[in-house]
């Protein structure tokens, strides 16, 4: 199973995402922001970082990178796409996911091991979790406050499109403690916390993040 990881100018976590894919049993395929080519991959990850220096708005310029034309078309066709942190911001700017991410309400960058509750275990990226399962993965962002209008929030909650919620602490002012969401079809998932940093005991708070990647590999094998 070939999972592409896009590198934008300013991406930071692309190599960690590739590593997570390999540990999950998939083949990681590097993709370049300037290419109109997904190299025949079965799924795509938009990694964390500060694409284009976060100029204008986080993810606003990355959205118009050549590779995103292909990513948006593939996502609309049902290809699994995961956006982590800056990748989540890019998915929102691309309108593949509703809402937007704004500066943390407390105005400081936050970096902590964050506990989440998985609320939707039927997406392409969360099927190896169970609903209600609590996981701990790193969170690190300056602009991670998820916002949307009340009608959109109600719809996300009503349709089961909230994938993960913050537990105990709301680290960035996200409305209704939302940490991650999915589209109606369940193939596109975005979240602010970093599951790719929690795939090995040596380098993370545990391996709670690994199931994001094994879920996709398993879903693709089954297809």
């Amino acid at each position: 199973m070939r999972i592409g990881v896009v590198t934008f100018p300013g991406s930071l976590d692309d190599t960690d995402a590739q590593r997570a894919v390999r540990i999950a049993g998939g083949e990681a395929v590097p993709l370049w922001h300037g290419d109109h080519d997904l190299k025949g991959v079965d799924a795509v990850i938009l990694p964390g970082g500060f694409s284009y220096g976060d100029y204008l708005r986080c993810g606003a310029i990355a959205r118009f990178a050549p590779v995103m034309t292909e990513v948006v078309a593939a996502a609309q066709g049902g290809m699994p796409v995961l956006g982590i942190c800056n990748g989540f911001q890019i998915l929102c700017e691309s309108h593949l996911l509703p809402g937007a991410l704004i500066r943390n309400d407390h105005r400081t960058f936050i970096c902590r091991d964050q506990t989440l509750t998985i609320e939707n275990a039927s997406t392409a990226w969360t099927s190896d979790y169970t609903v209600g399962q609590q996981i701990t993965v790193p969170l690190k962002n300056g602009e991670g406050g998820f916002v949307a209008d009340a009608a959109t929030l109600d719809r996300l909650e009503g349709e089961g499109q909230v994938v993960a919620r913050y537990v105990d602490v709301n680290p960035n002012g996200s409305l209704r403690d939302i940490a991650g969401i999915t589209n109606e079809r369940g193939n596109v998932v975005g979240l602010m916390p970093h599951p790719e940093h929690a795939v090995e005991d040596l380098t993370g708070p545990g391996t709670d993040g690994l199931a994001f990647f094994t879920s996709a590999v398993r879903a693709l094998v089954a297809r």
Partner: protein
Amino acid sequence: MARVIVDVMPKPEILDPQGKAVHGALPRLGFTAVTDVRQGKRFELEVAVADEATLAEVHQLAGTLLSNPVIEDYAVRVEETA
């Protein structure tokens, strides 16, 4: 030549942490008259002619790249230059 100004502001219902930080600094400087601050962005676009077609294009780019309609409003105005 003409200059087109695009002002982008966070929607009123969206929290503006930067504006709050600026507001919070004012009393420390002895300024007490200001009751709220909201911070936005101003873009100055140089164009050959600010005709209807150009302004239509500016509106389009203001609504796609310069602002995110989910969280921001924009306004376009023309500033004639010599």
